């Protein structure tokens, strides 16, 4: 069952990718969607077994590397953690596959698109089911590659190509950290298999390492390096710049890769490595700080963006920050819970926005929309469900997971924890405001689009709405249904078992009532506030932004990260590159190397030809000269 689960997407991908031309667009779409759906069903069955029977298994598919002490297998590790990921990945993937049939209906390269989606699914599955760091890395790079393919899917658009390259390069920075981390693990433990590594972790707690001239504890170094990898993949602050640009890809891609699955790989890595991270309080604090900064930063930027997909992208970034600081305060299960619920409502939001974009014929600017809720009733309702879930409206999924994060952060009891909880609450408020801004600007107010008449707007086809409805069901009920399973105090031992390690049991105190109440209250209050700001009194936000021009610019320009990186990294490396190319390579190496030698020989050859004058006396003279030269040489020698 596990093998079928894992390889069905691969088969689908190969079929559609290599034989798409022969079997036709429609068959490619059906085959990929069907296979991935079966995969999703299988993973649901597996998840059920894990819940009910505490099923655990490690299927070794093949031996991969067997060299000296390095033994690495291709394997499918099934436990609580990976089964959650399997459900998220295959379910969202299956829905996105189906949705894409409608969304990509006007695209000429459907089989290629479906093949990439399925391939991505396969890579993501190998990532989450790995039982060692190497296979994890394989999946890690695999999803990165597919992400590159899919961001740049519309390869005729320059901006798409640039975004794809940017995503790849920024991820490379993170991957470098991950690779170093894996190297270090192999160096210290001589193995890269999770179980063996985790077992040996307590033995190296006090081990010091000299790294870049700094003495650092080995365990801290491993964790920091791994976390750098996670930061790259999960678009945490400093390495987040690729995620908003990645919205150049088709919207289903954004929903699948850049909201629900791939970007959560970093969170998964941290949770999977909880047996390591638990021993490194330093890194956990770093994770908390980075996570909460990202959450706050992304939320502020999302406030002023006008591109519907970019708003949701920053929202994703922000929610990933929540997950990280949950992990940072030691509540790995809560992080996973938020990951789980987030997958539903964020995929819903993305696919919903895709539906809007589709209706508006590829318009993404929310200032160009408005007043269409009657035209797009289903999309409107579904988007509101997604928004409510995202903002943490009581009893929807986001409510349970996000509040749990804030509570656990508060309960952590240290400075970072309190700080994180505070930021978490404030960010929740911001989240609510920007989300409702999106809804009001898109569906309400006045119609602002000059390119097409409002009569032309029409609801998306049923094939796109069904996945939305299914996701909406998940967004509504996932939190309520699974909260006990994921984050109740018994679950730590019962459900999660060995897949997550808690060095100290989680704090079982109840947080004060005001902490529990403050977030929902703020969220509820923000709805009328947003309504007032963006519908009733539109001048107010404009006036505010006019009077606080620097702040507004700061946010619109995304805290100037891109500009900063452009100056620090891109310009400088370009200069270095130009120097090596123009000066070192062309003027020195080429000039004295290949070019110089070849022109020298050409020159000599011309002279040699001229030397051959055709006059017999000259030839005779040469013979005599040669003779005399040899004689002279021998006599002197």
């Amino acid at each position, binding site marked *: 069952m596990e093998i079928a689960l894992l390889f069905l997407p691969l088969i689908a991908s190969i079929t559609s990718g290599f034989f798409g031309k022969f079997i036709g667009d429609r068959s490619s779409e059906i085959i990929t969607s069907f296979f991935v759906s079966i995969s999703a069903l299988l993973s649901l069955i597996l998840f059920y077994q894990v819940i009910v029977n505490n099923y655990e298994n490690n299927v070794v598919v093949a031996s991969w590397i067997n060299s000296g002490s390095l033994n690495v297998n291709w394997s499918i590790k099934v436990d609580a953690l990976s089964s959650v990921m399997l459900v998220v990945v295959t379910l969202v993937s299956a829905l996105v596959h189906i949705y894409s049939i409608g969304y990509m209906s006007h695209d000429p390269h459907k089989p290629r698109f479906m093949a990439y989606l399925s391939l991505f699914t396969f890579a993501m599955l190998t990532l989450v089911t790995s039982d060692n760091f190497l296979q994890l890395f394989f999946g890690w790079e695999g999803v990165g590659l597919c992400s590159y393919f899919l961001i740049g899917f519309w390869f005729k658009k320059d901006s798409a190509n640039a975004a794809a390259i940017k995503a790849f390069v920024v991820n490379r920075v993170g991957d470098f950290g991950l690779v170093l981390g894996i190297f270090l693990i192999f160096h210290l433990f001589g193995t890269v298999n999770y179980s063996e590594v985790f077992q040996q972790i307590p033995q190296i707690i006090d081990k010091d390492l000299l790294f870049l001239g700094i003495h650092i504890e080995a365990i801290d170094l491993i964790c920091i390096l791994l976390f750098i990898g996670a930061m790259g993949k999960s678009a945490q602050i400093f390495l987040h710049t690729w995620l908003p640009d990645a919205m150049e890809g088709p919207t289903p891609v954004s929903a699948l890769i850049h909201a629900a699955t791939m970007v959560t790989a970093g969170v998964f890595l941290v949770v999977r490595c909880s047996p390591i991270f638990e021993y490194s309080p330093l890194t956990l604090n770093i994770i908390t700080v980075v996570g909460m900064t990202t959450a706050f930063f992304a939320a502020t930027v999302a406030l002023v963006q006008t591109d519907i997909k970019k708003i949701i992208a920053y929202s994703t970034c922000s929610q990933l920050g929540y997950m990280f600081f949950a992990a940072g305060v030691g509540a790995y299960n809560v992080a996973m819970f938020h990951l789980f619920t987030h997958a539903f409502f964020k995929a819903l939001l993305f696919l919903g926005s895709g539906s809007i974009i589709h209706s508006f014929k590829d318009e993404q600017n929310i200032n160009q929309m408005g007043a269409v809720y009657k035209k797009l009733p289903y999309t409107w309702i579904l988007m509101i469900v997604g928004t409510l879930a995202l903002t943490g409206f009581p009893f929807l999924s986001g409510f349970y997971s996000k509040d749990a994060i804030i509570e656990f952060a508060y309960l952590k009891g240290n400075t970072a924890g309190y700080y994180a909880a505070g930021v978490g609450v404030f960010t929740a408020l911001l989240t609510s405001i920007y989300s409702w801004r999106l809804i009001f600007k898109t569906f309400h107010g006045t119609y602002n689009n000059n390119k097409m008449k409002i009569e032309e707007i029409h609801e998306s086809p049923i094939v796109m709405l069904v996945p939305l409805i299914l996701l909406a069901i998940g967004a509504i009920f996932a939190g309520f249904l699974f909260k006990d399973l994921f984050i109740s105090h018994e679950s730590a031992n019962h459900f999660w078992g060995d897949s997550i390690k808690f060095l100290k049991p989680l704090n079982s105190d109840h947080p004060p009532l005001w902490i529990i109440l403050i977030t929902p209250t703020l969220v509820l209050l923000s709805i009328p506030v947003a309504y007032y700001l963006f519908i009733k009194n539109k001048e107010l936000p404009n006036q505010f932004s006019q009077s606080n021009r620097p702040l507004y610019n700061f946010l619109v320009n995304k805290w100037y990260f891109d500009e900063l990186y452009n100056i620090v990294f891109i310009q400088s490396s370009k200069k270095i590159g130009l120097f090596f190319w123009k000066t070192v390579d062309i003027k020195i190496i080429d000039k004295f190397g290949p070019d110089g030698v070849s022109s020298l020989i*050409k020159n000599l050859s011309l002279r040699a*030809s001229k030397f*051959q004058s055709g006059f017999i006396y000259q030839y005779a003279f040469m*013979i005599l000269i*040669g003779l005399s*030269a040899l004689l002279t040489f021998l006599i002197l020698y």
Partner: protein
Amino acid sequence: MINLNFISAEIFISVSIMFLLILGVFKKNSSSLIHNLSIGLLLITGILILNNYPDKSLTFFANSYIIDTLSSLMKIFTVIGGALVLSISKKYLKISNIFLIEYPILILCSILGMMVMISSNDLIVFYIGLELQSLALYVLASFNRDQLKSSESGLKYFVLSALSSGLLLYGCSLIYGFSESTNFNIIGNALKSTHYGLTFGIVFILVGLAFKISAVPFHMWAPDVYEGSPTSVTLFFATVPKVAALTVFIRFLYVPFINMIDQWQPIIIFLSIASMIFGAIAAIGQNNLKRLVAYSSIGHIGYTLAGLSVATNEGIQASIIYISIYMVMNLGLFSCLFMMKRNDQFFETIEDLSGLSKNHPILSLSFLVILFSLAGIPPLAGFFAKFYIFKSVIEQSMYFLAIVGLLSTVIAAFYYLKIIKVIYFDKEKEKYDTDHSTWLKVSLAISTLLILLYFIFPSKIVEIVSSVTII
């Protein structure tokens, strides 16, 4: 009583020459007959040599004539080379209006001269052989006497060769003066001092010989003569006399001058390096294929000289293998040149090859194989030829020579590859004729296959050549 069996080949060929001459004079329109007969007679000569293949060295006529494995092997190469040259150039001669009875007879004469040279163990016998082959070659070079270029090249060759013969003779007389003998073995025993007179003698003789094999800086005649002579004669020049001259070179260096190795070794190394570099560089600027072959042969002679300079049996054997493979490659290359004919006119510049692959795929493929082999690209025969040479050079720790050799191989590869590029990637031209003689086709096929398949049976060749031990 002298056992004349061992020199039956020389006797046979002398008698044949006279017979063919008389036949040609008395029978009208006998060019074709004499041409075919010559080929047959040459093959019979080859069989005679093979039949009397010696196991040890024998000397005749008061030690002035020697038959050993070296001489017999090289004679076989010479004779077979001569026969092949005659057989593939028949059509060319007919078209160029020089299909006369004298042509094969002159070639036979020069081959007889070479055989005498190869077997000589005495300065005077050697000189007689040399002059016999040279005189025939002068005539051959200017054989197409109605053409200005051909007569010019014959005259140039004659004058310069006379100069070099003069130097050679002067050297011989000096050697005779110091050793009181013309016999190689006696000279070898007598030459032990490092007297300047002896040095002069050696240098004069070596310069004379270097001229014959066109080593730099005594090569100046080669490009002009190669270009001016009829193509079939150029082919003969580029292959057969080289074999003979190389044998003489070996004989001189390792029999009479064996004790003077300190004196001649730097000269040979210098000639070798100069030839390799100059051959590679000067050929790049050439446009005429025959001229290019001249420079290429200068370069190849550089490699054979490198083998000679190491003063070991392995080096000598490597040189012999090199010159035989070189002969095969040149036969193939000229077979290709003979095929570049349109409306009874032959073409010989690189531009004429442009886009050849479109109309003549098989011919182009042979060209490709031969040129790759000349450039020394594995696994073709040319690679092994160079490989043996470099191996023997490096075994004697002569690294400088090896490095220069390798570098010049790289440079030389350029002009061979340039021709391939022209054949395969340039714009196609008009088709060439395809009515080639069977002999020409067979010769091209065989030489290409030999080059291509050499790597299957290298040990056989090495085994045959390894019986040649001089030192």
